[in-house]
């Protein structure tokens, strides 16, 4: 891909972006949120029309008119937002558009069997006839992977496939990637997790503001250089891996929230957590351990079947989020697209969505005050937007996340529940958000943070509560919050030594035969 140009509503998303990938190589594509990675990929696969530039694939100039054309041309893609059809069965999702047919009719048994076989190879056993939507996001990611692998492609593109996978699943994924490589298939791998890039990638392209700013061998660039390239500036302090400044002495905080033995359906069976004023408390657990569920119950988005929640000393029972908000809670969902942004509304409206009642008198919004709040937060969080009136859907994922954080910070809450606040966010933005969380806590805000990133929990939290199968299984504090401890608690039964190793030491076994 040479000198690709692409603009949305006059704003350049890609400006002279270039990318070249050799046969059989794993190529990292990296850049800050909004750098243009997803856009570049969509231009390549024909999901977007480019405004300029040329694309050569397998020696010939190509111009895919649609993702279908790209797929036929030998490019399989896993897009950033898991893009499958939840209502259709797992098997159908894998074979959609390529179903085995006889006399024009779909051969169901053959299709189901083949789907099951493909998934088994990825280490997953499930009923492929069930709707995809009844499985977790992680499983859905793996189904997307199975689909991409089963398309006999010359190039497989993965746009942030790991953002909702746990470490073991990431390992499986790496195995698949290596298998592809052995067959001479090239892979484009987009991720914000540097460790992962170094673990599997051969070469790398760094993008910034729609431009390609670096391309070279993975081994030729150090982490520090890489981050500098992404941000376009030098970083002095890269000692810590996150933006948290850990407050060493955590004073005995006044209790703010305490949830004890919360029960809900089969998802929560005795989950407890406590957060004090000015504390950042982490909520750890494997996928599906019930972290999000607990957060939703506390926030009144779901109703508990049992247990007790106390807030500021009072037993409370919020019947709806609005009651929780009135009491001083805020909740940032993990599903940005589905539960966070209102895509058609502007940044301004999105940012003040929860605040509106307070910005108004007798139901009439004070636009002056609204404008002030918005401007302040755009500046404070460094939200990249051309205009507060720009629809939020036009922002990159990371910037959308910042707007959502601002939505809650503007409320000046007593307790903020953040569900995966830094998922899919580039290192720069991530560090900023983490620093911000720390600062807010110091000012007295209580934070309950769900995170799948161990560093974040270790460096950012005064306490970490670990859930497993909907139950609280451990409470770690201060110095005892270490990686082995956490892993041990999350996966109880495993000795810390048996816990999955950091991905920097590649496992030998390959999943794909």
């Amino acid at each position, binding site marked *: 891909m040479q000198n690709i140009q692409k603009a949305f509503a006059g704003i350049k998303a890609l400006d002279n972006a270039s990318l070249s990938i050799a046969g059989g190589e794993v190529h990292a594509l990296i850049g800050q949120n909004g750098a243009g990675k997803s856009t570049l990929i969509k231009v390549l696969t024909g999901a977007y029309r480019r405004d300029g530039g040329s694309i050569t694939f397998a020696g010939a100039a190509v111009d895919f008119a649609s993702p279908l054309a790209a797929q036929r041309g030998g490019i399989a893609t896993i897009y950033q937002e898991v893009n499958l059809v939840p209502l259709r069965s797992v098997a159908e999702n894998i074979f959609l558009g390529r179903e085995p047919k006889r006399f024009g009719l779909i051969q169901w048994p053959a299709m189901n069997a083949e789907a099951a076989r493909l998934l088994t190879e990825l280490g997953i056993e499930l009923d492929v006839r069930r709707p995809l939507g009844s499985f977790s996001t992680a499983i*859905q990611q793996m189904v997307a992977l199975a*689909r991409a692998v089963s398309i006999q492609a010359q190039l497989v593109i993965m746009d942030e496939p790991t953002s909702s996978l746990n470490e073991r699943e990431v390992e499986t994924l790496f195995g698949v990637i290596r298998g592809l490589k052995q067959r001479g298939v090239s892979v484009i791998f987009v991720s914000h997790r540097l460790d992962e890039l170094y673990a599997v990638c051969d070469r790398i392209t760094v993008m910034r503001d729609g431009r390609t700013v670096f391309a070279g061998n993975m081994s030729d660039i150090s982490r520090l250089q890489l981050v500098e390239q992404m941000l376009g500036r030098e970083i002095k302090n890269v000692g810590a891996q996150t933006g948290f400044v850990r407050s060493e002495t955590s004073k005995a905080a006044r209790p703010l929230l305490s949830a004890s033995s919360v029960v809900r359906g089969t998802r929560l069976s005795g989950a407890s957590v406590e957060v004090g004023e000015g504390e950042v408390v982490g909520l750890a657990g494997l996928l599906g351990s019930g972290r999000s569920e607990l957060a939703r119950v506390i926030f009144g988005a779901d109703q508990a079947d049992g247990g007790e929640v106390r807030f500021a000393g009072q037993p409370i029972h919020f019947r709806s989020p609005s009651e929780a908000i009135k009491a001083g809670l805020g909740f940032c969902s993990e599903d940005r697209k*589905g539960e966070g942004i209102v895509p058609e509304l502007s940044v301004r409206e999105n940012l003040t969505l929860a605040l509106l009642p307070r910005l108004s008198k007798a139901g009439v919004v004070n636009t002056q005050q609204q404008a002030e709040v918005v401007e302040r937060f755009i500046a404070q969080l460094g939200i990249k937007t051309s205009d507060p009136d720009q629809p939020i859907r036009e922002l990159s994922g990371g910037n959308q996340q910042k707007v959502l954080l601002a939505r809650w910070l503007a409320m000046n809450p007593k307790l903020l529940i953040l569900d995966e606040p830094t998922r899919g966010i580039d290192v720069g933005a991530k560090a900023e958000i983490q620093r911000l969380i720390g600062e807010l806590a110091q000012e007295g805000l209580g934070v309950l943070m769900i995170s799948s990133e161990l560093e974040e929990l270790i460096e950012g939290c005064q306490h970490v509560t670990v859930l497993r199968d909907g139950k609280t299984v451990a409470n770690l504090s201060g110095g005892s919050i270490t990686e082995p401890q956490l892993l041990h608690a999350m996966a109880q039964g495993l000795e810390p030594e048996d816990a999955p190793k950091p991905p920097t030491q590649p496992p030998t076994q390959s999943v794909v035969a």
Partner: protein
Amino acid sequence: MLSTDRKAARANPGRTQLLSALSQYGVLATLILLIVFGALRYTGFMSEYNFSTFLRYNSMFGLISLGMCFVIITGGIDLSVGSVVAMSSVVAALLSPYGVVVAVLGAVAAGGLVGLINGLVITRLNIQPFITTLATLLGARGMALLLARNQSGVGIDPGNTALTWLGQGDFLRLPVPGVIMIIAFVIGGIALRSSPFGRHALAIGGGEDASKLMGLNVGRIKLGVYVLSGALAGLAGMILAAQLGAGQPTEGLGWELSAIAGVVVGGTLLTGGVGSVWSTLVGAMLLGLIFNILNFENGKGIISLSPYWQSVIRGGFLLLVVVLQSRLGRQEGKG
């Protein structure tokens, strides 16, 4: 996506199946109950004559509901079918002097053409189906009246008895329109269950962007469902003309709403992505049966229902069935 997760994940598979069966057969059960009720209460209700009358009339609603079902499955809607029925009936009548084949194909093609226009406007100009087909609802009605030169009926060529047979004749003691409808449903059922067209229509309704990114030719399939809906409405129009011996430019007012109601009563969600051809058949027949029962009830002379009361009752019945449907459907999502 996560919200769907959350709902579905709590379900227990065995129970889910039971409930989904219930919601599918709930409407069928209602239909059967109504038939039993009618049989016990009214003389002449279970006669072959009444059965055949019922099928002959309701076959047209069955056909447009079938097309509507496919459209709704993709998350769209087709408000033009009522007008298309009228227009195609006129086309069939006008073409009747040229033989039955020409008349039938002409009517179906005329309907398909409106469907093609719908599909092209929706996929190429990106105008929402509701608005597009609202416009063709007006346009096709206008064309019907223009073709009929404002006459209320355009007579079929009396020599074309084959065409008349398609509307008024019997085949194996079954009314021909009913047979045509059943054949259409069998093909439709297979198409939805096992043809790529049907599966892709379902996939598009479940996630259009995702389907596009997975390489489906979304535009062509959407075009396909609107052409199908138009063509089936054209077929219904041919039956209408054949049955009445004349093209009917003013017929079909509000039929689109009956079709939508039939599909919805059958348990298909207007949001797309799920749907069943068989439930649609049952739903359409159930709504037709209400008319039939109300006619018989009036004949008892115990209470004389004015047509006004009949619309109130029909509205209430629609509410009842749809609520039942959604209750059962929702149970499915709980654990």
